[in-house]
């Protein structure tokens, strides 16, 4: 098993948290995992990204030039990371902020996830990141949604533990969306 992804967006969108939760879940699932944030001056200007690599073998490089997948939460991220994804890879696009034609990619699979709408549906627009994470886990298949849900208590600061059920709901909403899409395609 090998999976990697670059998760990118505005600072406020919680992209680093997505990466952390994913990495934490992978660790708990007994996988080898690395998480690598951007840091320093690159953080100015309000964008953020991180790379997560999950594998059965020790992870050599935590930074990936041609990722297997990318999760792009805003347009500049889509423009930057879309083109880097492998041909056989997947791009998870925040359809709430990014429109068709606004970026290029070689990737076979592009999943458009209306994160904010789905998050609104479950009552909290700020959970858009967890919705997306649910979609990524479902689409990437490297972990189960349950494994991620179980990791939340460890990954989140105790202050936010009361939010766990809502987060789990968001994860599931995202996962459901992907399943439905797949079903729709097949059907």
């Amino acid at each position, binding site marked *: 098993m090998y999976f990697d992804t670059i998760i990118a967006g*505005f600072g406020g969108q919680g992209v680093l948290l997505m990466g952390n939760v994913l990495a934490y879940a992978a660790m708990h699932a007994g996988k080898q995992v690395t998480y690598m944030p951007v840091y320093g001056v690159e953080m100015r*200007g*309000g*964008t953020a990204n991180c790379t997560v690599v999950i594998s059965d073998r020790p992870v050599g490089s935590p930074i990936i030039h041609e990722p297997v997948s990318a999760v792009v939460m*805003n*347009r*500049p991220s889509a423009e930057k990371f879309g083109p880097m994804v492998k041909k056989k890879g997947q791009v998870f696009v925040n359809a709430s*902020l990014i429109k068709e034609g606004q970026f290029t990619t070689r990737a076979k699979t592009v999943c458009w996830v209306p994160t904010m709408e789905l998050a609104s549906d479950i009552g909290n627009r700020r959970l858009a990141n967890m919705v997306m994470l649910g979609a990524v886990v479902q689409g990437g298949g490297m972990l189960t949604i349950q494994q991620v849900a179980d990791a939340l208590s460890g990954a989140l600061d105790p202050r936010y533990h009361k939010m766990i059920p809502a987060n789990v709901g968001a994860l599931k909403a995202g996962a459901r969306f992907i399943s439905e899409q797949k079903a729709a395609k097949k059907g």
Partner: protein
Amino acid sequence: MPQVKVISERCKGCGLCVLACPKNNLALGKEYNAQGYAYVTFNSDGKCTGCAFCAELCPDMALRPYKEERS
């Protein structure tokens, strides 16, 4: 009539001009620019005096106020 042009691609939506305008002519909009900022919009309902306070206090020089030329 005095007015203010917003260079929307330069605006970062910080809202300092909104604070600065004595006439409440500026407001943060709902449109995002390419950088992902919800930029400010100018409400041209005639209250603008062309005082340029907004432009003076905009950290990103995103505003260009205009005023009638005195002849």
